[in-house]
Each structure stands twice: as C-alpha cells, then as structure tokens.
C-alpha cells in the first residue's frame, strides 16, 4: 500500500519535473546517527529545492548533467556535493554540527516537537545543563531563578514548613480563588502524582508553556500555564554512554532564634504570675496550665518549700527552650544522591536505563527518608517507518518520621503547652517532661494513686517512636510511531501509572501515647480497659491507578521548499482511580510475632479520665473510591511560508465526568491562533547590527476548572456513629449559573540577536483576560449558604498584564567566557468586572482583600496611622475630629473609603541575573534574584495581647514599646496594657505602621564545577569527570525593610537553612 502511494507520488513528481538527468535520493543524518527531518536539499544550478521527510530522506531531480547539491539544516554546517552522472543514486549524508551556530532548541509541548525558532507561542526551555546547575532532589526546585516568568511564592509557607512547596505562578494570576498551580506534564501525559517521585537526574529538559498558543493544546486545565518535563532518552547509533553521579548536600541547623514571636522566659513568667493573680486560668483536671503557674500554685498550697521554689524559678528564668531544642531536636541535614544512567543505541534500537538512590537525613533528628528510582526505556525500529517504545519507571520512597520539631512539642513562641522556660533535659542530663493535654498536678496525683507514669518527655519519645511510611509508584509507557506516505505519522501512546502509599506506627508500651491511653481508660475500680502493651496503627492506604491513551496523526511537509505545512489531530482518553483502604489499630501488639489482639470492646462508651466518656478507637478513617475520567479531542496546525511567515492554530475539546454538572457543561472547547514573522529575511531589511529579528503574536483561550463546585446539589455519604446509621451531608447546594473559568491570552513578542551574537534575547508582552472567575461565597447567608461554605460564583473578570524580558549577553568570549542571563518579569492585574456584592465591612477588607473593579486583587488595605497618643502611648485616633480613647467606637466608625491602599502583596517586578564564567574546565555561575515593588505585613505585639491567658501573642517589639511621653517620637509600638481592649490593638495591627516593604535582592545560589576532558584522561577508561560544588539560600544582598526580616518568608519560624553540596559526575 505504502509503496504504491510512494511510486505514484514519485511518478507525479517526475512528470512535473520532466525526465531528469540526475536523480538523487539522500538520507540525512547527524554524527550521532540521528535522522534529520526538515533538512533542506538544494541544487545550485537548477534551483531545485526539496526537504527531507519524516525519515530524513529526500529525492531531488535535475535536468542538468552536472550540478552542486547543498544540504543545509539549522545548527549544522552546509554539506556540498558535486553531482555528475557518476554520482551514486542513493547516498547517505552526514552533517557536521556548526559549533558557532546557536544550538537549535527543540521544544516538546507534550503533543509535538517544534524548533523554538519556528514556534509562535511563548515557550521557555530549560535544558539539561541549566537543570544540573543546582542539586535539589525535586525537579521544580531546580527551575527557580533560571526560568523566565515563573514566580516561586513562599508567602504561603508557615511555621516550620520552610522547605515546603512554594506556590508557582506563571505570568501572574489568571484566577482569583481557583487553583492557580500550573499543569504538570511528564512523558507527554498530565501528571497528578507526587512530583517528588521524579528523579531530576532522569530529566533531560523542561519546557514551560506560558501563552495560549503554547498551552491551549492542553485545554481546560492549562489556564495557569503548563510545565512539561521531558525524560532522558537514548539515541540511535550512539555508543553506550554511562554516567555516574554522586552528590552530598549538607544543610544547616535551622535558626530557631530568627522568629520574633516570643518573649524571654523572665517576661513570660512575669506575665503568667500576673495572670494567675487575676484568676485568668480555670484550674481543673482536664486543662493544662503553664508549668510556671503550676509551680506558683505548688508554693501557694505549700507543696514546695521556699528554697525549692526559688531554685526552680531561677532555673526557669535562665532557660530558653529554643537553645535546648536546637541542641537536642535538630541536626545538620545530610542528603546523599547517587544516580547511574546508561544510554545508547544501534541502528535499529535505542535505550536508556537509570538507577538512583537518594538518602535524606532531615534537619530534624530521626526524620529520614530515602528514595529509589529505576527506569528502563527501549525503542525498536521494527521497520524503517515503525518505531515501538516501551518504558518502565519505578520509584519507591520510604520515610521514617520519628523526629520532634519544636512545634510538634507544642512550642511556637507563645504557646502555653510548652513555654520558653520549659526544658527538654534537666540539669542532671535526664529527659525532662513538658506540658501535654491535662493538668500536671492531676497527673501527678493519679500516678501516686497507681496509674502509669503520665508524663510526656520528648527526648524519651524521640528514642521510642517508630513511625514509617512507604510510597511506591510505577509508570509504564508504550508508544507506537508509524510513518507513512512520506509526510504522515501516527502515534499511539498508552501510559499506565500505579501508586500506593501506606504508613504504620508502632507505639512501644513505654511511649506517652500508650501510657496516656491506658490511663485515660483506667476505670475507677482500677481495671485497665486498654492493655499496657504495644499498639500498632496502620495508616490508610491509598492506591491510585491511571490509564491514559492517545491516538494522534501528524502531517508534516515542506512544499516546494518555500512553505511548510504541519498538522496534527488526535484524541486522548484518561481515567484515574483512587481507592482508599481505611487504616486500623491493633492493641496488645507484639512486634516480634506481629500479632495483636482484637478482643477489646470498641463499641461501648466508657468513662474516661479525667472527664467525659469515649469508646476505644479501632479504625482511623473511612474507605473511599474516586474515579475521574477525561476525554479530549485536539487539533493543531501551522503553516510556514518562505521561512519567515508562520501561522499556527489549535483547537481542543475537553470533557470530564464532573459531578453535578449538566451534560453539556461537562466539556469545554478552547482554541488559539498565532503568527510569526522573521523580519530580517525580508529584502528591505538592512539593519546589520541586528541580524535576527522576529515578531511573534498569539491569541487564544485556555481554561481552569474547580472540581469542588457543582451545578446540582451534591451530597457526600458517611456514617453517623452516634445514631449508628448511614447519613448524607450536603456538600454543595448547587449553582445553576455555574460555568468554567476561561482565560484569553494575548502574547506579543520580539526575538532578536545583535551582531556576532553578543547579545540576544526576547521581549514579550502578555495580556491575560480571565473571565467568569469563580469567587467564594458572596451569598446572603439567608439563602442557607453560610460564609464558611465552599460555594463559588462566577463573579469577576480579571485582566493581567505584564512583560517578560530575557537577555543573554556574552560579555567575554575566548579563553575566559563570561555570559550573563537577565530575566525580568513584571505582572500587574486589574479587576475589569465584578458582579458580587461590595464589601462595606472594614475587617473583611483588611483580612480578605476585596475584589473591586479597576483595582488589583493583590492589594493590601490598612487603617491610617497617626502615631501614638503622647499621653497614653496608645494609638492616636480621631473620632469626629477629636482625639479619642474609644477604640471600639472608632473602629466601627471606619468606612471602607477611610482605609488606605498600602501596596500589593505580590512583587510587581521580579527576576534574576545569572553570571556564568567559563575558563578551561572551570565553570562558575551565580544567580542573584530579586523581587521588587511589593509589601508585607510584619508581626508585632498587640497591647495587652500578652495577657490573653489561653492564646497569648508575644513579640519582641514588646521591648520597643512606648514607655513615657516623648517615646512616640521614635516608636510606633503601643504602650504596655494590662488587658487587651477590643480593637485598640486592632487599630495598630491593621494599620499602615506595620506595612513593610518587601523589596529584596538575594544571592540565590552559586555553582562551581570543574570538568576534565577526555583527552586529558588518556589512560583512563573514562570519558569525562566533573566535580561540582553548589550552595543555596545564601542570604539577602539588599532588602528595603530595616527590620531584618526576610520578605520571602513572612510567616515561617525560621528561614530556609543554607545548604551546600559537593558532587562528582563521571562519564564512561
């Protein structure tokens, strides 16, 4: 069949050309044996031009008897061959790489590959070298600072989660309350698993799709951009290459003293003493009171003599919990990464294998995890036009979570559970107890009357705990690529993914958990309902499987060498299923025999100590089953003319089995159009200084869905333990006017290079108009939809505009090379339409920035600040033009228009400057990143907030407070107050006084490597060696705030600790 078409085609060509004297069929490859598609073959004299087909083959005819054949390809040196009648009819042409040319970057969108030079959309390509600059074990981490218009926003990180996942924003916002995270694509399929299962050493490159032309091929979930992760693959005719990589990374102990949200022991004790005298504690068995208060009560009840009291009080006063926490709970983190990659191929097959092992000892003592990755990919060329690929990826992650951080023990600066004067270890070196659940004295009394030791000693727990979890992930991928009719190929892909994870926790009889449970269920007659022996808790296991299939037909042809037409169409089908199996708990567990007892009454509610009643727990969660299905049809085409004009377009329909939507709302259709014009190829262009100039523009739509919203009312089923019957909960009351969010994106771009390629770059302008954005709950609660319910309405349109600048300069060439990369991104947004109700409530405006037409959604509002009242030291306020002390009245008199717009929470300008120096084998690069033009609210005290006995707020500003008239000249911190009067502190805490500039320039990382080349390793069976050093989180070079705060981490207890790694890479 195929041959038949081919011969007809050739016949047709022959008749048009006439009977030629020369007929040459060429197969164009590069030195690695890779087929070069789209190479240009030209006959100089007879002016015939053709290009290679999808198998790298061209056939050309000439009426002349002698001619010169010139074969060219972007990135390769031209190949010339003098033709005469004796030239062979069929030749193989090997093109040499052009070392001076810019390497042709081919990007993969997940559906098609296209050279960056021919793409109309906004793509960012991160190649392997850039990915390997840094050493993080998470692939996304490696994109920071090197990726154009990708903002890593860490404002969402709180507490100790400094290494947690930052929010990623590609080109600002395209949603207000929807999911703003970009879509991840791995191996050409959407990836919903844990990104940590991917070993960065297996990744070849990453492509970021930023505009509609780039993203709309991904459809309904591409509104926030797409991150396409391409895995390493073998190549045909490539000798086996083995590469071994080993990296060790050390991370500093966290600096617990960074947070200002604490007060020193002596002050805290003073405050608690005062509170006790004010009867601010309810003293009862079931409630913990701070240990110093307990000590004071002991003295009051004459349970301790004066000397003992003084001694203990003194110890407390001298103590700082954070020091002991630093010493006994934290350590220097050590992360080891090993990976081995083998790649290669013959004429008809190629393969890639990898094995990797990562071991990570966290900053927190006894928190460890390891990861193992194995992969194997094989591709066979069954016939010249039929390629089969099979790959398998396996990841196993195992972690031990036995560590105790200062927060898990209940210390957060102002906690009453564990106070700053509490200790982990006493003066004799024995583990000390800290607060937990019940009153200390109650527990002591109960212990005296025969109950088990009821004290919680963190350092003992650290030794005893045995809590592990495991996650496994396997991915299978098969691919059939069949080429036919010269310009067509069909690709069929199928991907299967299965992941399981589970955890188990064995509680030794000596753990506080067991002792506490036994004591709680000890009855008045002394019977212990929970046996004093080990308890094994199996966590729920979640098993996820996904099947994805895609069938796609591609057409790609050079017509008459002047125009290039490519087109693809296909369909994709996907199903993900997740099954949750509930966990269980076994009492009387013997870890040696692996047996437990089930002969315990789990149904009856027994009286518990010290109060209430409960049943003994057996299960830990309920089973669940979720199934998502997706179906898409897509098409994409581009037409290029004379290598300078390109028009492209795409269209896609997406459907899914969303719950509670009308059938016709299950799907959404999205499209895009784009053009590009390479101006420098025009004959009128004679601007030599800029030899390359291209204008690109695209427009199109992408979508964003929110699965929690529903057109019809939806319920979720459950079990009512009280009535022991099935029950349903209304999970969504239904929204008949619901529709999906849509983002229309315009992209205008200019790519340019100056002479000698010394400076090149791109300037892109984007304009994203997001429509029908869902915003939460603007409902009148009288409808029955309360403010807390997750109920969203299509209520606003948002326009986001910005510029992306990318400039690369080669400052020095020659022996010492110096390259600079500048990334500069701006983004501003503005609400263009809003149909929800207007906010008139000041508290709401301050706490949740309102959506107002004509304004940004990132704005922050504050109460005007007039300084401190010179008489009282409290915030100065004016009520009806008079100075007043009536704070509640002032607060409630505030109108929305009285509030001040103090700035935006998100940087207006962000970017980085990367400098790279190369000298012989040395390679040094440093990234300086900056975020400018934004603000954040810093913490401070609230006057009297220290005296909220149950939930105090401490801050070191306590010592900067107003003390006497005149202090208002240099401080904004209000005076000491005995009690917290409603709104008096609010007037300060919500005011301009605490708004702080967020502008920051930081030295993000430094990377140094030294490569030894093959020719220097003559006698070694080694291809190359590379030594690598890398340091990250190096600190701030400049910041606008004078408070010593890091604006990137406004809510964490400490900053991301500095890390340094050393690595070795050997290639064989």
């Amino acid at each position, binding site marked *: 069949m195929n041959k038949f078409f081919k011969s007809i085609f050739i016949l047709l060509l022959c008749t048009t050309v006439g009977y030629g004297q020369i007929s040459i069929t060429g197969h164009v490859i590069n030195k690695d044996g890779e087929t070069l598609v789209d190479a240009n073959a030209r006959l100089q004299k007879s002016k015939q031009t053709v290009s290679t087909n999808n198998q790298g083959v061209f056939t050309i005819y000439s009426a002349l008897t002698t001619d010169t054949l010139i074969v060219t390809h972007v990135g390769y040196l031209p190949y010339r061959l003098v033709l005469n009648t004796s030239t062979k009819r069929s030749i193989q042409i090997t093109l040499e790489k052009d070392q001076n040319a810019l390497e042709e970057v081919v990007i993969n969108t997940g559906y098609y590959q296209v050279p960056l030079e021919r793409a109309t959309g906004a793509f960012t390509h991160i190649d392997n070298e850039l990915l390997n600059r840094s050493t993080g074990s998470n692939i996304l981490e490696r994109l920071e600072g090197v990726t154009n218009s990708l903002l890593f926003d860490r404002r969402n990180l709180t507490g100790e989660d400094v290494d947690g996942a930052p929010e990623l924003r590609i080109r600002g916002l395209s949603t207000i309350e929807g999911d703003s995270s970009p879509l991840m694509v791995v191996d050409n399929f959407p990836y919903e698993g844990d990104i940590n299962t991917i070993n960065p050493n297996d990744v070849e490159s990453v492509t970021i799709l930023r505009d509609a032309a780039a993203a709309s091929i991904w459809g309904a979930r591409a509104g926030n951009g797409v991150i396409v992760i391409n895995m390493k693959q073998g190549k045909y005719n490539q000798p086996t290459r083995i590469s071994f990589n080993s990296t060790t990374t050390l991370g500093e102990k966290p600096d617990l003293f960074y947070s200002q949200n604490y007060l020193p022991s002596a002050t805290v004790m003073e405050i608690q003493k005062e509170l006790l005298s004010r009867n601010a504690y309810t003293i009862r068995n079931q409630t913990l009171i701070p240990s110093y208060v307990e000590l004071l009560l002991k003295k009051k009840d004459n349970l301790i003599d004066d000397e003992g009291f003084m001694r203990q009080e003194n110890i407390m006063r001298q103590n700082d919990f954070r020091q002991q926490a630093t010493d006994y709970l934290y350590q220097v983190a050590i992360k080891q990464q090993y990976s081995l990659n083998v790649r290669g191929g013959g004429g008809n097959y190629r393969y890639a294998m990898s094995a990797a092992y990562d071991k990570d000892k966290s900053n927190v003592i006894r928190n460890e995890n390891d990861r193992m990755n194995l992969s194997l990919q094989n591709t066979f060329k069954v016939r010249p036009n039929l390629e089969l690929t099979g790959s398998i990826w396996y990841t196993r992650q195992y972690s031990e979570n036995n560590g105790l951080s200062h927060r898990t023990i209940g210390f957060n600066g102002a906690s009453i559970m564990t106070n700053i004067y509490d200790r982990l270890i006493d003066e004799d070196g024995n583990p000390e107890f800290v607060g937990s659940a019940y009153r200390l004295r109650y527990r002591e009394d109960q212990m005296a009357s025969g109950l088990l030791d009821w004290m919680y000693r963190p350092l003992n727990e650290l030794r005893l705990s045995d809590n592990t979890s495991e996650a496994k992930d396997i991915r299978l991928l098969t691919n059939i690529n069949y080429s036919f009719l010269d310009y067509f190929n069909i690709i069929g892909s199928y991907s299967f993914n299965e992941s399981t994870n589970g955890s188990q926790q064995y509680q030794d009889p000596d753990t506080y958990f067991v002792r506490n449970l036994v004591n709680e269920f000890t009855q008045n007659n002394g019977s212990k309902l929970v046996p004093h022996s080990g308890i094994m808790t199996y966590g729920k296991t979640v098993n996820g499987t996904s099947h994805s299939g895609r069938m796609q037909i591609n057409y790609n042809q050079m017509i008459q060498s002047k125009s290039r037409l490519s087109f693809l169409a296909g369909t994709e089908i996907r199903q993900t299923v997740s099954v949750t199996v509930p966990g269980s708990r076994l009492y009387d567990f013997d870890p040696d025999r692996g047996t437990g007892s089930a002969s315990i009454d789990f149904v009856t509610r027994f009286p518990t100590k010290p109060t209430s009643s409960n049943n003994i727990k057996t299960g830990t969660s309920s089973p669940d089953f979720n199934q998502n299905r997706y179906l898409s049809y897509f098409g994409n085409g581009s037409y290029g003319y004379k290598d300078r004009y390109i028009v492209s377009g795409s269209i896609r329909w997406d459907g899914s089995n969303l719950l509670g939507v009308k059938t016709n709302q299950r799907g959404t259709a999205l499209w895009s159009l784009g053009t590009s014009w390479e101006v420098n190829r025009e004959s009128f262009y004679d601007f030599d200084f800029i030899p390359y100039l291209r204008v690109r523009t695209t427009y199109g739509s992408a979508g964003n869905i929110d699965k929690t919203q529903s057109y019809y009312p939806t319920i979720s089923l459950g079990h009512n333990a009280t009535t022991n019957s099935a029950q349903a909960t209304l999970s969504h009351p239904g*929204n008949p006017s619901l529709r999906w969010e849509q983002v229309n994106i315009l992209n205008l771009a200019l790519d340019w290079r100056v002479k000698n390629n010394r400076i090149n770059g791109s300037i892109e302008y984007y304009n994203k108009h997001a429509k029908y954005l869902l915003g939460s709950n603007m409902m009148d609660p009288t409808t029955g939809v309360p403010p807390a319910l997750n109920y969203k309405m299509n209520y606003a349109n948002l326009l986001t505009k910005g510029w992306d600048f990318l400039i690369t300069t080669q400052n020095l060439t020659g022996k010492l090379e110096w390259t600079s990369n500048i990334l500069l991104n701006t983004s501003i947004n503005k609400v263009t339409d809003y149909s929800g109700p207007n906010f008139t409530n000041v508290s709401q405006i301050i706490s949740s920035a309102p959506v107002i037409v004509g304004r940004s959604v990132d704005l922050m509002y504050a109460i005007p600040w007039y300084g401190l009242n010179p008489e009282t030291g409290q915030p100065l306020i004016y009520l009806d033009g008079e100075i007043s002390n009536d704070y509640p009245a002032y607060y409630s008199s505030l109108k929305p228009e009285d509030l001040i717009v103090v700035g935006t929470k998100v940087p207006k300008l962000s970017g980085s400057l990367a400098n790279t120096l190369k000298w012989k084998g040395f390679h040094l690069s440093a990234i300086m990143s900056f975020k400018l033009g934004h603000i954040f609210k810093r913490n401070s005290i609230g006057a009297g907030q220290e005296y909220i006995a149950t939930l105090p707020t401490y801050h070191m500003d306590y010592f900067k407070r107003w003390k006497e008239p005149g202090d208002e000249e240099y401080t904004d911190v209000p005076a000491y107050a005995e009690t917290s009067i409603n709104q008096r502190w609010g007037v300060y805490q919500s005011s301009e006084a605490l708004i702080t500039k967020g502008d920051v320039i930081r030295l993000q990382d430094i990377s140094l490597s030294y490569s030894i080349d093959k020719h220097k390793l003559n006698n070694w069976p080694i291809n190359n060696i590379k030594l690598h050093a890398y340091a990250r989180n190096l600190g701030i070079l400049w910041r606008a705030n004078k408070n010593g705060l890091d604006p990137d981490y406004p809510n964490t207890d400490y900053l991301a600790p500095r890390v340094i790694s050393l690595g070795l890479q050997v290639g064989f």
Partner: protein
Amino acid sequence: MYKCKMFAVLACLVLVSCGETFLDVKPSIRQRVPSTFKDYQLILNNSLHYDYSPLVLNYIGADELYVPEGLFNSIPNSLLYNFQKNAYTWAKEIYEGTEQITDWNDAYSLILISNIVIEGLNKTANKQDDWDLTYGSAIFYRAMSYYHLTQSYCLPYDVNDAKNTIGVPLRVESDLTMKVPRSTLAETYEFILGELNKATELLPLEPESIFKPSKLSSYALLARIYLQMGNYDKAEEYASSALAKKDNLMDFNNLEKKNNFSFLPYGKDNGEIILYQSLGQQVVLLGDYFSKIDTNLLNCFSDSDLRKTFYFDPKDPLQTAYIGSYSGSAKFFTGFTTSELYLIRAECYARKGMRDQALRDLNHLRRHRIATERYLSLNSQDTQVVLQWVIEERKLELVLRGTRWEDLRRLNKEQDFAKTLVRELNGQRFELFPNDKRYTWPLPVEAIQIGGYQQNER
C-alpha cells in the same frame, strides 16, 4: 501496514463514539447528586439535625452563665470570638462580618437542607414506607428552625402587634437566587404553626428513636410555641396530648453519682427525652473553661434538691461547671422532654386558674427531683403564688436547656416576673432592662450587606 492503519482509524472511531457514555461514570462512590428517596432520607439522618441548635446567642445573652472577669479578659480578640464577647455584654453591634457561627446562618442552612429534601421528595413517588416520616421530618425541622429564628431575631410575640411586627424571611424553596423579604411576625408564626400541623399529620405517634421527630415532638414544639404566644389553652392541649402518650420522669433519687457528666452520652436510657437536640457548635465563650454557672442561679437550689448535685460540679462555688446536660457531655441539651411539658402544662393551668391541676403537675415533677426523705409537697390557695412557683421551678428544672432567653423575653412583659440582667466587667456595668430592644439580636453583617435586609433596631 494496512491492518495497522485500519486499527488506528478504528481506535479513533471507538474513542470518539464512546465519549458520551465514557463520561457518565460517577467520580466518587461517596459523592452524588441526590435523586432517590433513600438519598433524602440520609440527608435527614445527618447530625446537623440534632447537634446544631441555632441558639448560641440566646445562651450567651441569658442569665444562667457568667464569665469571671479574669477569664473574660483571656478570651482572644479575634473575629472568631469578638461577637461572643459583644453578645455577652449585650452590645448594640456584635458582628464584624464573616463570623462562622451565627444562629441566623445555621438556621437558614437547616432550612435550605429541608427545602432541598422537600422539593426532592415531591419528585419521588410516595411508595416507600418511611416517605411520610421523612417528608414530615423535613417540614418539622424547617418549622423548628423558623421558631428558633423568631426567638433570636424578632421581637417577642404580642398577639395585638404581631401583624405590625417584622418577622423573618420565609424561604420555602431551595432556589438560591430568590429574593425573599422579611415577613411580618404574624405571618411567620402562622407559617410555623401551619407547617407543624402538616408535620403532625405525617409523623408517626411515637419516634423510632430520640433522634427522629414524631407527633410527640410536634406536640412538644407546639406547646412551647403557644406558651410563648400566650395561648395557654392551646399550649395546655398540646402538652397534654404529648403527656398522654409519654409521661415518664426519671427519679433523681435512683440516679447514681458519676465522676463526670451525670447522664449517659447522647440521651442514652433517658426516658424523659422526646426529641434529642443539642448545641454542638464550638462556642469558646460557652465552653466550661470560660463559662461558669451564675451564682444567683446556684443559690436558688435548696440543699434537698438533687438537681444541685446532678446538674453542677460543686468543687469551687465561684467556678461551678455544668455537668447536667442530657447530652451526657459538655454540649447543652436543647431538645424536648416530658419535664418541660409538665412545666408548660402546670403554667397553663395556673394561668387559667386551675390551681389544683397546676400543683399536681408541679409536685409530680418535684417528687422526682427532691430527695425523698426531705420532700415536702407544695400547696397554696393563691393561684398567683402557684404560678410563681411554677415559673421558679421552670428556671431550676430547665437550666441551660436553651429556653431561658425565650422565657426572659416572654416574662418581662409581666411586672411580677420582669428582671434586669446585669454583668460587671473591668469596672464597667452592663445592664439589660426588661423589654429592652437588645433582646432581639442583630442580623449578621452579610444578610444586611448582601441580602439587603432591614437591620433590627437595637
């Protein structure tokens, strides 16, 4: 090759044609769009219907609990708690917006659920055995929610004025886009009574369990409402109807003292409960860490009164905790019991001059509450004295049952029973006078701002 191509084309065709049914599968086994009778039945099984009485403000405002100054100052200042503190001192404005626990919102959430169930049931055929029970329950719950709203957000019922008094919006459809104005108080009560009569028709006489409505619970609610309206004939009639079927009282002389809560969890083995209801919301100010039993109330209990030991934890007289909830936990019990019905009937009898009948009911209840060896029957020839005893007994028996605020509003209209409530904090004295406008709580900020409703005068 040809086969391969055909296969590809076929596969494409299959993918295209199966599209519609492929997407029909449900995404989750536990999530669904309610459509069957069973679905609606399960919605009403939800703990929302017995564990979330929208009576938070009424508890905070009444005179049964007090928060000692030291502890009051320890309640954090935040949006979560400020309205509770403001309500505690009967401030004119109590809300700042986006409060999560407001009785208005909670009541209307329950009303929405009832509306969805009622509309859904209307579309299902009446074939199932429990259809009447389910439909009647939905109507009952909706009526009860509306009644709770009147006790918080409307002026006390006055038969002469009800037509000119503002009521609450009567939402009877689940359509969220409908704008419903506030009705008059007369309309509101009329609606509630009418709905309850419908529910009475449908519900079985006796409940399946104390968590399910029945004719008895309908009678009990009607008795409560008519008492509030001052219609003593009707109130007595409904109380009698219920007591005719169920008149058990626990004899506290036979109760065992437990080391924490006096009654078993969730009304277990409690013969007095007609319908279990409780206040399950986490209201910090109402928690027993902060709220203590009002000392004046405590002093009203005689030493022979067994309720004193079973209701209260007497360790510290100034910080007495409440342990007597029929919920057997720290949650306040707000449901209906036979003891309340006895008290309603006794009051009706007394007000109608039927002194002997009033004394009979009153003494019958007291016999079950007072230590047998010290029990003395009350007796008087003066009907007014008997009425006073009944009202006093009501205060003692129904401690923290969610009825005190209603009683204060109702009784304030009578000079003999009117009472000024007082709180003292940080040197400030707060007073709530009889018939004060602040006996009617303000609507939440969102209802005014978004719903455009008229705010209550305070």
